[in-house]
């Protein structure tokens, strides 16, 4: 047991003395969280638009003012020919062009249809959807406002809308749980996979193998320091989320911590598994980083909702541990539910951890090739 404690101590020193890695390890979550909290938004603000006004009368000016003062758009400029419209789209100056048909106010006064054309750059389909949606609603509002009284269209059914758990629809509330999952996944999987292959590559693995330590002790000793580091990381991110971004935390703290630890163990055993299948640090890193980064971000429901994906991908996402952890952590933080609602996801994570651990143990060679 003494030699085991000594081994763990040695591993700790290894990490702590490598101050550059430490800075990254703790700096990365902070910077990511700040980016997500302040810089990254899904909402539409100040999209550049062009106006192609073939009437140039007081009504089109009034509508233009309304659109520009809405806060969603920013005027790139007035365009006067279709060639200019074409050019503005191609060099990326505008996202949308609003074309007013000729004799706009006259047609409107005569009870004819006045024409507006919205041209959107649909090479970004999401953006174009939002742009067209917002512009249309501004136009419809305007149309309503100019009707003479008594003609008001009355809605016979009025929806009363209530948003639960995140009433201001803040994206940071969703991003923080996602970020915790991504950081834990990558840091843990990466660190363990590297640290073991490093010993292999440097040839020091043989020294460890002939030591009186059992294989399980070697593995636990390698993994333990990272478990502690991940724990500190989670605490840091959580603290920032709560005190800087005021993300709600409605559930139990113990529940949060134990689920995070479970997820960390799953990620660590995945890292272990990767290390047993790779012979060099480079290979391990490629698998852990290049292989896990995008799938963890994209298939876990962090940015894109899992239920909107094609069925095949929904099945595929089942093997992404972060997907289950996100369900758990959102449940705990935003909805404040306990284990009685989340036992299924917890069980899945635990099973994943055990499977990875067992395979790695089997593959962990105590002999040299």
């Amino acid at each position, binding site marked *: 047991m003494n030699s085991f404690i000594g081994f763990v101590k040695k591993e700790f020193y290894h990490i702590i003395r*490598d101050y550059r890695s430490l800075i*990254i390890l703790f700096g*990365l979550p902070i*910077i990511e969280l700040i*980016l997500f909290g*302040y*810089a990254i*938004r*899904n*909402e539409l603000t100040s*999209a*550049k638009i062009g106006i192609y006004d073939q009437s140039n009368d007081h009504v089109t000016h009034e509508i233009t003012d309304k659109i520009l003062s809405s806060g969603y758009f920013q005027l790139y400029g007035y365009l006067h020919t279709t060639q200019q419209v074409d050019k503005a*789209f*191609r*060099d*990326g100056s505008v996202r949308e062009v609003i074309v007013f048909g000729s004799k706009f106010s006259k047609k*409107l006064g005569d009870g004819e*249809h006045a*024409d*507006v*054309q*919205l041209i*959107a*750059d649909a*090479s*970004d*389909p999401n*953006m174009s959807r939002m742009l067209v949606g917002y512009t249309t609603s501004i136009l*419809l509002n305007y149309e309503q406002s100019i009707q003479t009284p*008594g*003609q008001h269209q*009355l*809605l*016979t*059914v*009025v929806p*009363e809308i*209530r948003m639960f758990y995140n*009433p*201001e*629809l803040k*994206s940071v509330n969703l991003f923080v749980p996602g970020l915790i999952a991504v950081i834990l996944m990558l840091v843990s999987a990466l660190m363990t996979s590297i640290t073991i292959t*490093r010993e292999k590559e440097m040839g020091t693995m043989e020294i460890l193998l002939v030591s009186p330590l059992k294989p399980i002790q070697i593995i636990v000793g390698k993994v333990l320091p990272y478990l502690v580091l991940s724990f500190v990381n989670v605490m840091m991110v959580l603290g920032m989320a709560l005190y800087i971004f005021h993300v709600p935390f409605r559930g139990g703290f113990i529940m949060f911590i134990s689920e995070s630890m479970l997820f960390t163990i799953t990620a660590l055993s995945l890292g272990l598994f990767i290390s047993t299948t790779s012979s060099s*640090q*480079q*290979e391990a890193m*490629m698998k852990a*980083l*290049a*292989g896990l980064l*995008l799938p963890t971000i994209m298939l876990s429901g962090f*940015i*894109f909702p899992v239920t*909107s994906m*094609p069925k095949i*991908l929904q099945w595929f996402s089942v093997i992404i541990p972060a997907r289950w952890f996100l*369900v758990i952590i*959102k449940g705990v933080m935003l909805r404040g*539910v306990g284990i009685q*609602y989340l036992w299924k996801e917890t069980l899945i994570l635990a099973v994943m951890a055990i499977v990875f651990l067992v395979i790695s143990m089997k593959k962990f060679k105590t002999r040299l090739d």
Partner: protein
Amino acid sequence: MLPIIFLMPLIQLIILGNAATYEIKNIDIYIVNKDRTPVSRRLEEDFLSTKYFTISGYSSQISEAKKSMQEGDTDMILVIPRHFERDLKNKHFDKLDMLFNAENGNSAAVSQTYAQSIVQRFTRQWQRNHPSLTPVKPQKLINIDTVNWYNPELDYTSYMVPGILVILVTMIGMFLSGMNIVKEKEVGTIEQLNVTPIKRYQFIIGKLAPFWILGLGELAFGLFAAWIIFGIPMVGSLVLVFFVAAIYLLVVLGLGLFISTMTDTQQQAMFIAWFLMVVFILMGGLFTPIESMPVWAQKVTFFNPIAHFIEVMRRVLVKGAHISDIKNQIIVLGSFAIAIIALAVSRYKKVSA
């Protein structure tokens, strides 16, 4: 190693190309119908007949519905009040409660617009069936016509796939080059290279060239796959894409080598490369539009090579931009390339510490 370099990006491209959609489907709706009349049934049907909503539960008790939402099985609760039909007939007016699980604010906002438009359609239908209640038609009408250029079907894959491809190529290039020199340091073979008569710039270029060719090959491979599998439009000139890619790869690999010269172990190099990658990806305009960021953050993205290259790929492939349309990006990437390679050469010393 080679299968990892080529197969892994390909698999990811195929899988992830389909994953990225902001279109919200399969919203789990729980219907609480306290009315249970033909009219309220029709409203229910209006919801369920769209492809957007699937039913997760049905009862006349709101508490059941709320429990289901708390468990995470329900995204939206629709409450049809008692006497819905009677009130519509007598008072021509009624209220509906819609409760959303807004954990994902974006999804909730989209679901809400779907739901509202269904209710609107229902209302219009109702008005048509009861002409006596129909209000006077508005007389001043604006006719709105929407045109979606470049991508009329609003297809997400042609938007996402070029971006994902850029990330994958960048990741492979940066990680490989980032670990390269430092690996020689760690293993000790750098000393042998240092005592050869090779010049510093020759050393860096020699290190760079293989990865550069590999990166271009990877891009060609990925583009071919994207074209075959996803039918990504290739409106613009491929020559232009590869011209810019050639410059872009110099930036990425230069950055990798620079990291490599700055660090002592592969682990450190990898951490820094990873750190840069994550920031580049998140601020690259792949998942969230750059325009939506605050102004200071938009300025920061100027230094993000990924953002420039994703922009170029999208513009040239999807919109058919000419070289004059993307000259700014070319100039910026070119300057980055020169600066970072000069930096890498000057950082690399032929003496060991």
